[in-house]
């Protein structure tokens, strides 16, 4: 078996098939999802992921990876494996959403009232 270009794979010594495969602490890196906060109080938004041996280093990596160009005041990292998600085949649970238009917030016609209120306020100010 050829050696891999990745030293982490080589360290597993996979070619010795009889030996149990042992992974040292910190050797098997995890994927961490990164969330970016643009200003205090704003939502943290998902921007991508980094590989790291632990959460501390994931945050260190995320800072240069995702926090060095645009405005940023804070970052979150969370291990991708800790995220609970639906299975892909459960997508059908959401299938009829488009028909249930009565649930759309767009159904509330408030702009007229808001515009009327603004006009009144302006009138009052002008007087």
């Amino acid at each position, binding site marked *: 078996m050829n050696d891999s270009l990745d030293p982490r794979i080589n360290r597993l010594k996979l070619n010795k098939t009889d030996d149990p495969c042992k992974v*040292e*602490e*910190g*050797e098997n*890196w995890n994927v961490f999802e990164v969330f970016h906060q643009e200003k205090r109080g704003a939502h943290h938004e998902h921007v991508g992921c*980094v*590989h*790291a*041996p*632990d959460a*501390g*280093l994931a945050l*260190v*990596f995320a*800072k*240069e*990876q995702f926090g*060095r160009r645009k405005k940023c005041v804070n970052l979150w990292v969370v291990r991708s494996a800790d995220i609970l998600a639906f299975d892909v085949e459960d997508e059908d649970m959401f299938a009829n959403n488009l028909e249930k238009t009565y649930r759309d917030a767009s159904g509330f016609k408030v702009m007229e009232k808001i515009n009327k209120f603004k006009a009144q306020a302006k009138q009052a100010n002008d007087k």
Partner: protein
Amino acid sequence: MLLNQLIKELITKMGDDELILGHRNSEWTGLGPVMEEDIAFSSMAQDKIGHSWALYRILHEELGGEDPDQFAFMRSEKDFKCCHLTEMPIGSYDFSLMRHFLFDHAETVRYNSMLQSSFLPLQQLARKVRGELKYHTLHADAWIMQLCRAGEESYLKMQTALDNCFQLACGIFEAGPDDKQLAAENVYPGEEALYEQWIEAIYPVLVKASLNMPERKQPVYGGRYGKHTAYLQPLLNEMGEVFRLNPEATW
């Protein structure tokens, strides 16, 4: 000697340290151990070069020095005042990482001491680079902890790297002949005071990582007086190669 001349010498050695180590660390770009680290380390190398540019600009704008680019790329080797630690080749990653850890903590105590400097441009710069340096030492500390806890092979490499770097790093604090005057004028507290603060900063991290801190037995001096290792001249040749094709060109 005139105070301004002393400040000039202080800023020159600071700027040269940052330029040379910034260049050295940038040699890892594209070769870092993993992509995330490659980006982080390259970015911090850029920060260092940025610090040197800021320092050379103070020389130029406040102290009648040369144009920063000319000063960086056209000087001869003996006019550089960087310490030997910064000149050493990148070696393997454990060496480069340990050098980064020792140097950036030294840089942090140096700039922190200048937050109260009587020389205003240094005080302003110290305030400006504070956040960057906070990240640099956070990064360095996290890696030291990680690698010292990643098995015997890794731990031994880090201890060896520390042993190889330590006397060189003590050379950062090679005293200048006029440190007392600079301290008396509140420009900065002088090299010996910074050395003590540096030990206080790195010691807790080393203890946490179970590393043995060597004693300051034979600090590697000479750089501050223009005496350098054989590694500096080839670095200067490479660094200034393009600039010297046409020193008058506008970039």
